[in-house]
C-alpha cells in the first residue's frame, strides 16, 4: 500500500505541528459536543470505540503494509474477555479493560507468529482464516453464550471513584481512553521503532540487509495492533454492556478495513473520520436491512477505483500537510 501513504516526517522543534493542532481541535470538539447532547452521546462513544479499532488496524496496514483481514478476532476476544471478567468474576472496570486488551495481545502473539510467515495477499488470507477459526470457537464455547452473547455487563466504578453508570462520566472516560491511545499510536508511528516499520514497508529486503530483523518488528507491530484493537473491544463491551458474536465475525473485519479506506490509509486522522462516517451511515441505514451491506460494498468499490487516498488523505494531499 505504498501509494496511499504519507511519508513526511514532521520537523522537530517547529512548535506545534499540524497534526498536534488538529489533535487539540479534535479533543476540544469531542469534549464539548458530548455534554451538549446535539449528538446522541451513545453514538459518539460507540464511534470512538470503532475509531480506536480503526487506528489500531491502520497501524498495521498504513505503517507496516500488512493488510489483516481478521482484526475482528481481537475486537471480539477482548469484548468477551472483559465482559466475562466484569460479569462473572466481578472485577473493577479498569481491570476488566486491561484484561481484555491483554487477552487480545496474547492472541496477537499466537496468530502473528503464524501470519507473518507469509506476505502480501497470503497474510490477508491467513489472518481471515484464523479469525474464522476463533469465531467458530466462540460460537461453540460455553462462556460466550453462543448466539445470545454476554449481556448485562456491569459498568461499575472505575478506580473506585468514577461511577460509569452515569452517562457523562462514562462518556469522558471513553473519550480519555481514546485520546490517550491515539497519542500512544502517534508516538509509536513517530518513534525510531515506527521509522523502522516504515522502512520495512517500503523495502523489506533492504531493511533486512541493514541488519533489522524484519519479522520481529512485524510481530511487535502486529501484537501492538492486536492489543490496541483489544482495548477498543473491551471499551465497546463496557459501553454497550454486552459482548456478542457480531464483533468477532468476518464482516467486522471487513468493516474496519472500510473505515480506514474511506478515511485514508496510512493517515493518522483518516481512521477516526472513517469510523464516524461508517458508523453514522449504519445508523442512518439501519432500517433498511441488508442495504447496509450493499452500500458498504459500493463504497469499497468506489474507494478502490477512484478514491484511493480516502477523505483525510485527499485533504492532506491538497493542503500538502501530514494529517
Amino acid at each position, binding site marked *: 500500500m505504498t501509494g496511499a501513504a504519507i511519508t513526511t516526517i514532521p520537523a522537530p522543534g517547529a512548535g506545534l505541528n499540524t497534526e498536534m493542532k488538529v489533535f487539540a481541535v479534535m479533543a476540544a470538539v469531542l469534549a464539548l459536543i458530548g455534554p451538549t447532547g446535539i449528538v446522541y452521546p451513545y453514538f459518539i462513544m460507540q464511534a470512538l470505540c470503532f475509531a480506536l479499532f480503526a487506528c489500531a488496524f491502520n497501524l498495521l496496514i498504513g505503517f507496516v503494509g500488512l493488510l489483516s483481514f481478521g482484526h475482528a478476532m481481537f475486537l471480539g476476544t477482548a469484548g468477551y474477555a472483559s465482559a466475562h471478567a466484569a460479569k462473572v468474576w466481578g472485577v473493577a472496570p479498569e481491570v476488566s479493560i486491561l484484561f481484555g486488551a491483554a487477552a487480545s495481545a496474547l492472541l496477537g502473539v499466537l496468530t502473528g507468529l503464524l501470519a507473518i510467515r507469509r506476505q502480501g495477499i497470503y497474510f490477508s488470507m*491467513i489472518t481471515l482464516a484464523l479469525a474464522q477459526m476463533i469465531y467458530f470457537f466462540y460460537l461453540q464455547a460455553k462462556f460466550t453464550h453462543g448466539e445470545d452473547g454476554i449481556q448485562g455487563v456491569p459498568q461499575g466504578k472505575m478506580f473506585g471513584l468514577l461511577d460509569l453508570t452515569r452517562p457523562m462520566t462514562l462518556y469522558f472516560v471513553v473519550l480519555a481512553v481514546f485520546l490517550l491511545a491515539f497519542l500512544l499510536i502517534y508516538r509509536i508511528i513517530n518513534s525510531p521503532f515506527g521509522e523502522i516499520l516504515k522502512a520495512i514497508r517500503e523495502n523489506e529486503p533492504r531493511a533486512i540487509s541493514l541488519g533489522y530483523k524484519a519479522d520481529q518488528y512485524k510481530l511487535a507491530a502486529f501484537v501492538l495492533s492486536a492489543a490496541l484493537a483489544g482495548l477498543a473491544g473491551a471499551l465497546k463491551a463496557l459501553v454497550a454492556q454486552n459482548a456478542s458474536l457480531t464483533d468477532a465475525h468476518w464482516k467486522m473485519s471487513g468493516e474496519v478495513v472500510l473505515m480506514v479506506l474511506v478515511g485514508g490509509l496510512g493517515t493518522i486522522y483518516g481512521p477516526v473520520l472513517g469510523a464516524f462516517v461508517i458508523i453514522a451511515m449504519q445508523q442512518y441505514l439501519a432500517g433498511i436491512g441488508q442495504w447496509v451491506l450493499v452500500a458498504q460494498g459500493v463504497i469499497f468499490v468506489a474507494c478502490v477505483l477512484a478514491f484511493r487516498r480516502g477523505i483525510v488523505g485527499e485533504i492532506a494531499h491538497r493542503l500538502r500537510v501530514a494529517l
Partner: protein
Amino acid sequence: MFNISTQALFSQLLVGLINGSFYALLSLGLAVIFGMLNIINFAHGALYMMGAFCAYFLLSIAGLGYWWALVLSPLIMGAFGMFLERTMLHRLAGLDHLYGLLLTFGLALIFQGLFQNYFGSSGLPYAIPQELTGAQNLGFMFLPNYRAWVVVFSLAVCLATWFAIEKTKLGAYLRAATENPSLVRAFGVNVPRMITLTYGFGVGLAALAGVLAAPINQVRPLMGGDLIIVVFAVVVIGGMGSIMGSIVTGFALGLVEGLTKVFYPEASNTVVFVIMALVLLVKPAGLFGRTA
C-alpha cells in the same frame, strides 16, 4: 471411538468428498485467476452463490432444467465475470495486489447484500434431475446417484482444466503470460484478452460448482460467504503455485473434514484452519507451493 458404524463413516466420507469437490473447483478457479491477474478473487464465493441462483432462475423463468443450467450458468456467469474484469479489475493493473482483494471484497458484499434483500437467508429448493435420482447399494452403504455424479464430474472438470493448462498449446501461452506478460505480448499474443478470458473461466468454474451444489445444499444467498474463507485456507495449505496441488488439496481437505465429523464433530468447522496453522509452521510456502 471404534463404535462408529461403517455406514456413518462412509456417508460422512462421501459428504467430505462432495465438499472436497467444491473446494477443489473453487480453489482451482482462485489459482487460475491469481496466476494471470495477481488478484485474490474475494468475490469467488458470491459468484458461486450466483451460479446456483442462475440455475434457479433458468428453471423458474425460462423453464430450462438442470442439464441446461450446467452449461448455461457457467457461460452466463463467465460473461458477467469478463464484464467485471473489463470494467473494474482491469483498472487495478500495476497497483498493489491488495487493492484487488479490497475491490473484490466490495463486490462480494454488494452481491450478497442484493440477494439477501430479495431472497432473505432461507434456502430455495432445487430438485435433483430425474436421471440422477435414486441410489446404488454398495453393500456397505447406499450411494445416492446424484452425489456420485457430483464427485465424478467435478474430478473430470478439474483434470480437464489441469490438462488444458499444463499440456495444450493454449495452456502454454497462458503459463508463459503468467511468467512474463510483456514478452508474450511481443510475440503477438493478445494478453489483455487472455486475462479477461481467464477471469471469466475462473468465475465459470465457481458458477459450475454453484450449479452442482444447488440440489444438495439448496440455493441460499449465504451459501458462498463462509465457504470462501475455508477455500482461502485450502489455498494457503496447498499453495497457489500448482494446478494439480489445488485439486489434490481440495479433495483431501474435504475428506479430512468428513473424517473429523465422524470422530470429533465439534472440530469439524475448524479442522481446515488448524491444518492451515500446522502447515504454516512446517512448510510456510504450502504443500505444493514454490517458495517466492
